[in-house]
């Protein structure tokens, strides 16, 4: 049990971190393919609704801001865990997870209103590519919330001291990656119509 910290590789990186970077590399390929699929089929839908008829930029700007702020909270959570500050670690981990849940709430609102307005995943090429891309992103946010809540529970169990900061760091890598992907999606899908 005592040598759990001795996981350094010849690269000088902790092997958890190395594995997470490799995982994020493969995630880049996944989202790269979904974004390019969206772009390839952009403007090719035979029937509506089309993006400029249905996308709500003001509402999505708010949820984008919410996700950006969650990344800030994630940074503060890592700092708090690293210096062994349990109270603020719990506060910022909880805040990050909460902001993630708020983003998912926005997405739930967006998806249901789109369906009410007649855009489903099987309506047209825009619907198929849009829901696949943003839905996959939303699933990633949900997994991130699960990771954050797990860290929060571990903290309450007293098992998230500074020596476990690497777990918070890799969760942070994932969370920032998901945030960056959303910036790309927001730009490509919502702003560049």
């Amino acid at each position: 049990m005592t040598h759990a910290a001795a996981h350094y590789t010849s690269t000088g990186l902790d092997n958890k971190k190395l594995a997470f970077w490799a995982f994020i590399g493969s995630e880049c390929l996944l989202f790269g393919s979904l974004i390019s699929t969206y772009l390839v089929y952009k403007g090719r839908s035979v029937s509506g609704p089309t993006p400029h008829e249905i996308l709500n930029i003001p509402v999505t700007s708010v949820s984008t801001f919410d996700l950006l702020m969650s990344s800030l909270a994630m940074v503060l959570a890592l700092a708090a865990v690293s210096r062994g500050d349990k109270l603020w670690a719990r506060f910022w981990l909880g805040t990050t997870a909460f902001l993630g849940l708020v983003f998912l709430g926005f997405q739930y609102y967006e998806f249901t209103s789109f369906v009410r307005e007649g855009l489903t995943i099987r309506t047209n090429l825009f619907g198929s590519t849009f829901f696949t891309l943003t839905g996959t992103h939303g699933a990633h946010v949900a997994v991130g919330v699960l990771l954050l809540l797990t860290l929060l529970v571990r903290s309450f169990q007293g098992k998230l001291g500074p020596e476990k900061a690497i777990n918070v760091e890799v969760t942070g890598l994932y969370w920032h990656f998901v945030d960056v992907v959303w910036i790309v999606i927001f730009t490509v899908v919502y702003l560049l119509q």
Partner: protein
Amino acid sequence: MVVYSGALIGFMGWGVWAHHMFASGLGPIADSVFGATTMMIAIPTGVKIFNWLATMWGGQVRFTTAMLFAMGFIAMFVIGGLSGVMHSSPPADLQQTDTYFVVAHIHYVLFGGAIQGLFAGIYYWFPKMTGRLLNEKLGKLHFWLMFIGMNLAFFPMHFIGLLGMPRRIYTYRPELGVETMNLISTIGAHVIAVALLFFIYNVWRSWRRGEVAGNDPWGGAMLEWTIPSPPPDYNFTVIPEVVSRLPRWSVTHMKAIPEVPPQPIHVPGGSYWPLVAALGIIGMATGAVAHTLWIVLASGAVLIFSIYRWAFEPFEV
């Protein structure tokens, strides 16, 4: 050279696939481009073959079963490669499409090439995997029967195809004059089957009563022969320091690998949770295919639960 040729074959391999579709009317441009790349890919392949030959020329060849299969692989793969260059030319390919000539070609590449390569690997590494050698007498019997069988079965197909017999049709008119050659082909197929029976018997017998292999039955150059057969779960007691491309043969000997690990090696304990997690993914996919939401949700719960059990499983040393 072998590596560069392999990389080049891998790269050019992206540009040859439509040679399977010359007869479908792709048009002159696609036909020429894919025909040209298919002819060009023969060059790095030829480089590889001459490399293998030169390796044997420079080495001391011992005719073990594994070596026989490796040599059979090179010879038969060359025959398959030559007929491959023949149908890289679209006009010639139009004559050969859907005839037994193509069947002969694929079997020289796939059976003469890939399958014999696999058997060479099995005979070479079986002792490393199980700790016991496969019987060489039975192995040589297996090789020669299979080698003769495959040539009896597949060589006449070249002529049968060029004489006009289409593939995937088992009846033909006697005036085509291919009865004798088809009979030889059939006999060859049965010889292959008998050869495989000898192989299966050899595996069954050698696994239980075969000659004990020890660390290195072949005098191999590579690292796998420095450790016991079968290898322990942790493979190497210490991370080996390699100073040469042929570490066991080089003048500067590699550091000896201790038999007992000098310090405890952390090997993860066995766990069923990865398997349960995988079953959860299968369930999710099945539920999605069946359009049944509760199966997806229930399997998703199984997946998440088993990931947590897996992640928080106590650490065993």
